[in-house]
């Protein structure tokens, strides 16, 4: 009985895993570059940036919401942290480096809390509220940086995310840790349970006397915080902060979440699906790169993935 009620999940996982394996095999035969270590580092870093955001997005979509502001969040976090390092004295000392990163996390979390407040207290639909914060945060990033790319971060910050531990790129390790925490939060904590329940039937949860507002704001805050971690990682890897960084990252994140099997209408979320989805998208994107398909096709692909996944999802849920 137990196995039967879970089996549809395993089926869809098998599809994703199969796709990952099949494409990897194809690419390793078709291109001599695919199996190179440098390429793997490249894939890993790309996936890490997306996956960190997607973990938060999974939680948000499961609770019946959406966050379009994560891309702008990435940019604003990077810019503010860079400005901090550039403007503060003695910024290369360890305490200041740490303080800068805390500032970055606080920025992202604050954006998430603002989203949660607009959605909850003012009753604005999530997509429109976060569309607004997306515009505003991007504007702030442009203003704060004066539209320029900021260079020259302290070594201590750069080395936080650049480099390897035991041969594995640091961003990948961070992403793996966050993904594991994400699996844990969604499956094993009260917050994850409430997220599913609120996404499934908000009225029921309200009538049950559960403080929906608090949980929703927490969920958006986590989403914002994770976006800022992604922003820190990106800034550190590039050793530069761009005000237009993270453009369309929200689409990538939404694409892997829905591809993984999380229901866009809320109520059903799978973190493992999201991880596999991120893996698949990362490999496909890399494949297009090494097969010399212009990068411009990537945008097309993400849009098609979103549409196809939501159409399939809508059929499955009915």
């Amino acid at each position, binding site marked *: 009985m137990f196995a039967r009620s879970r089996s549809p999940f395993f089926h869809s996982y098998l599809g994703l895993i199969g796709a990952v394996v099949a494409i990897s095999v194809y690419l390793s035969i078709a291109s001599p570059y695919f199996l190179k270590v440098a390429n793997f580092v490249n894939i890993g870093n790309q996936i890490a940036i997306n996956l960190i955001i997607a973990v938060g997005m999974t939680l948000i979509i499961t609770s019946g919401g959406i966050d379009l502001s994560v891309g702008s969040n990435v940019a604003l976090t990077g810019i503010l942290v860079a400005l901090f390092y550039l403007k503060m004295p003695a910024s290369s000392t360890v305490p200041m480096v740490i303080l800068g990163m805390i500032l970055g996390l606080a920025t992202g979390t604050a954006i998430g809390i603002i989203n949660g407040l607009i959605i909850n207290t003012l009753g604005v639909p999530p997509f429109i509220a976060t569309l607004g914060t997306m515009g505003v945060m991007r504007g702030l990033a442009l203003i704060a940086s004066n539209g320029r790319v900021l260079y020259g971060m302290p070594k201590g910050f750069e080395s936080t995310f650049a480099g390897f531990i035991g041969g594995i790129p640091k961003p990948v390790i961070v992403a793996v840790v966050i993904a594991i925490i994400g699996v844990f939060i969604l499956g094993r904590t*009260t917050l994850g349970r409430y997220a*599913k329940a609120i996404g499934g039937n908000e009225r029921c949860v309200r009538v049950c*006397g*559960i403080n929906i507002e608090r949980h929703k704001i927490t969920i958006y805050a986590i989403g914002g915080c994770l976006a800022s971690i992604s922003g820190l990682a990106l800034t550190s890897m590039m050793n530069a902060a761009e005000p237009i960084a993270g453009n369309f990252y929200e689409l990538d994140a939404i694409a892997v979440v829905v591809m993984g099997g999380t229901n866009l209408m809320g109520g059903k979320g799978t973190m493992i699906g999201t991880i596999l989805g991120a893996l698949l998208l990362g490999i496909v994107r890399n494949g297009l790169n090494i097969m010399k398909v212009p990068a411009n096709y990537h945008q097309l692909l993400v849009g098609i993935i979103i549409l196809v996944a939501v159409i399939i999802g809508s059929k499955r849920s009915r």
Partner: protein
Amino acid sequence: MAETSLLEMHDINKSYGGIHALKGVDLDLRVGEVLGLVGENGAGKTTLMKILCGIEKPDSGRIIVGGEEIRIHNPHHAQELGIAMIPQELVLVPEMTVMENIFLGREKTGSVRFLRKNVMMDETKRLLEDLKCSYINPADMVGFLPKADQQLVAIARRILQGGKAFIMDEPTAALTERETRNLFEIISTRLCASGRSVIFISHRLEEVLKISNRICVLRDGNLITVLEAAADMDKKTLIFHMVGGEIKDEFPKIEVKRGKEVLRVEDVTFSTNQGGIVKDINFSVHEGEVVGITGLVGVGKTELGQTLIGVRDLLSGKFFIDDKEVAINSPVKAVELGFGYVSEDRREEGLVLDLQSLHNMTINSLDQVSNRFVLIKSRENKLGEGIAKRLSMKKEFLQMEAQQLSGGNQQKVVVIRQIVSNSRIIIFDEPTKGIDVAAKSEVSRIIGELSREMKAILLLSSEPREVLGISDLIFVLSKDGMEGPYPRGTLDYEQLMAIEFGAHKKV
């Protein structure tokens, strides 16, 4: 009066998942008459009308409209046949004007397909004049009209669409007495006089008696009788037919000695979904006591429950818990005070359908199965298994999603949630609605057991047998106010019905 039939239904059968809702019902509607349709809740009125409107398809039976046998495919088809439903919850576009609503789907256009607003405006005025309501401005937005006028707009729309047989479901529920008189005059002088017919469904028997030419009585999916309206017919006769003879006791009750008072409600006033006001409700509930509040559908029972758990505004009055006045402004607060609520609407308010049954049971007591943040699955499983065993629910059901369960088991899940969360005061709103007989007696057994655990229980139900069977005290809510309390054993079925329908004063 003409004796020709506008439409006929012959030997209509319909079952829902093992429940035989209609058992060979016949019905004919003559030209120019008002046919009253009465019966208890669940007698089959709604199902019968849904079939006529093309919302449901009958399992067997024939429908004849204008002398021709017809299969009704969908509501739009029914409308084309002249069957015009006026539902209780009116379906109008609130943001559009009276004229736009009336003409929706049949706009008049000129040669270049532009709307001819003046023509439609004139026709709307004429139509409203015909309905004796020329005071309604065709250019007003429908959302801002009083309910009674909205209803007239709905009727006007149906007339324009070529409606011949009007089905009115509780049309007077939200109307004042004057508005009701006005509606009746329109029905008899405007609709029926011009050869249209009306099926009038209502719980207000005196109104049915007043307006109908003939009255159909349904009971348990059977057509009991068709009565010709006559001067000597009264509510008692109708109730006799509606209730029937035998009553079996399917709701055993365990006697419990009641404890101290837990909840007291003083002079509480709140509004109903139909836009009415229920005034000055007073009662109290003690430990180990089941207080039943009954009354017809739409009289405000559900709304009372919603007021108690803080999802509906309290207009005036006070709540006391343990003799201390409390303010309940949200469900969060209500649950803190010890309330538990089993909603009438399982799918919309009772369950998170995507979630496993076990997780539905523990949703508002996660503190018990977690250390505030991390869930302890073993503890949760053990808790669920223990309770499922006690309530003879199969262990396998716990891992299934709530939507895969039958109605009865779904209801058990909702009830178990209240047991797990240790609520002191549990409000049950229509706890046995839409579940089979076995599950019904199971649920009432659970209610009895809860009262033995000295919980205070408030039962809101329009099922008279259930209220009579399990309540220690009974209140009857009607549009005239709340009557009672009647202690257990002081009321029988027929007396209760008489009070509900407001006929007891003559008894």
